[in-house]
C-alpha cells in the first residue's frame, strides 16, 4: 500500500470511528443556536406589539375583552378659531379620535371582572412598517375640554359601554396611511390597528 493510500485508509477509519459524534455535532450545534435564538427572540417579541388585528374605521373589532369602534376622527387646525382657543402650537393640527368601547367579560375567569386597560397611539404607516408614531397628547400643554361623559383613558373599572377620546398633536396637514393603535397589555404581541380615512 502506498503512503497516500495508507493515509486515505486511516482517514476513512477515523471518520467511521467518530461518525456518531460528528453527526451529533452537525445536528446539535445548529439546534442549540436555533433554540437559543427562538427563546430569546420569542421572549422579546412577546412584549412588543407585532401582530396587528387590522380593521378600518367604522368596523367593530372584538379584541382584548371589549368591542372597539372608532366613531369619529377629526382634525382641528391651529390657525382656526377653535385651534387658537385650544392653544395649539403654531403649525399643528389637533386630531381628535373618539372610540366606542364596549367591555365584555374576558375569557380568563380571573380577569372576568375587569374591563381592558389600554393605551392608544396614532401611527403613520409605510406599508406594514410604522413610519411615525404619536402618543396621546392628553397631558400636553393645550386647552382642550373633553365633553362630559367621554373618557380620556381606558378605565378598567368601567363595565358599561363608553366613549374614549384620544388626542394627538400632529404637524399641520399630516396625511398618509394613518391608523389608531390600541394596545392591551395582556394581549401583546397582538394589538388592534384601526385605519383612519384621513
Amino acid at each position: 500500500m502506498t503512503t497516500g493510500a495508507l493515509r486515505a485508509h486511516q482517514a476513512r477509519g477515523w471518520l467511521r470511528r467518530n461518525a456518531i459524534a460528528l453527526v451529533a455535532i452537525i445536528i446539535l450545534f445548529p439546534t442549540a443556536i436555533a433554540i437559543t435564538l427562538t427563546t430569546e427572540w420569542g421572549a422579546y417579541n412577546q412584549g412588543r406589539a407585532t401582530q396587528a388585528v387590522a380593521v378600518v374605521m367604522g368596523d367593530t373589532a372584538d379584541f382584548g375583552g371589549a368591542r372597539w369602534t372608532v366613531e369619529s376622527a377629526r382634525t382641528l387646525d391651529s390657525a382656526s378659531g377653535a385651534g387658537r382657543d385650544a392653544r395649539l402650537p403654531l403649525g399643528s393640527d389637533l386630531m381628535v379620535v373618539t372610540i366606542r368601547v364596549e367591555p365584555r367579560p374576558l375569557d380568563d375567569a380571573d380577569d372576568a371582572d375587569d374591563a381592558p386597560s389600554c393605551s392608544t397611539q396614532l401611527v403613520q404607516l409605510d406599508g406594514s412598517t410604522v413610519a411615525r408614531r404619536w402618543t396621546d397628547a392628553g397631558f400636553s400643554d393645550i386647552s382642550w375640554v373633553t365633553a362630559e361623559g367621554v373618557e380620556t383613558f381606558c378605565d378598567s373599572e368601567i363595565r358599561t359601554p363608553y366613549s374614549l377620546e384620544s388626542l394627538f398633536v400632529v404637524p399641520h396637514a399630516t396625511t398618509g396611511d394613518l391608523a389608531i393603535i390600541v394596545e392591551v397589555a395582556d394581549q401583546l404581541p397582538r394589538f388592534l390597528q384601526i385605519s383612519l380615512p384621513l
Partner: protein
Amino acid sequence: MSARSTLARAVASGAALAAILVVAAVVAHTAPSEEVWQAPMVVSGVLGERIGGRNIEATVDEVRVAETVTVSTGWSGTTSGVWIVVDASVSAVVDEFGARLGTANLVIGAATYSASERPDLGSIQGMGLTIGIAQSGPLLFEVPRSLLSTDAASAARIQLAISNDPRLDSLIVVTVDLTSIEIQRSIETGPIEWGRP
C-alpha cells in the same frame, strides 16, 4: 516515518500555531471596543443650522454667557461661576414614545456639564418632544469662569440627544467658541415656545 519528516511536521505545526496566535493578537487589538461599537452616532452642525438625527432635530440659535440669569418663570440663578445660556429648538422626528430632551451637555475639554435642572420649567432640559413641532427655549449650563479662558473653551461642544443614554442613537453636536463671547452681567431668557414658526 523518517526523523526528517517528523521534524518537518513539528516545524509546520509550530509555524501554524504561531500564525494563528499572531492573527488572534491582531484581531484582539484591532476589534472595536464596546465603547466604540456602542458609541452615539454624531451628527455635527453649526450655530443656526437645522440638524437632523434619527429621532431628533435641533437648531442651536444662540449662545450667551452671563453672571446671572432670570428665566421666564421668574427663577433667577446666581452662581460662583458663569452661566452658558444656549437657545435651541428641538423636536422629535419619527417617534414620540419616550421622546424627551434627555441629553443636553456642554463639553469643554475633558469636562462634561449637563444642563442645569435649577431653572425647572424655565428650561427645555428634559422636556417632552413632539414630532415636527419644536420646543424652543433656553438651556443653562453652570461652569467655572476660569474655564472660559482655556484653549478647550474655543472649541466647546453642545451635545443634544433624545434620551439620557444616546448610545447607538443620534447625538447632535454643535461646536462653539466660548472665548469669543462677551460675559454679560445678567440675561433674561424668553418663554419656552411650542411650535415656533
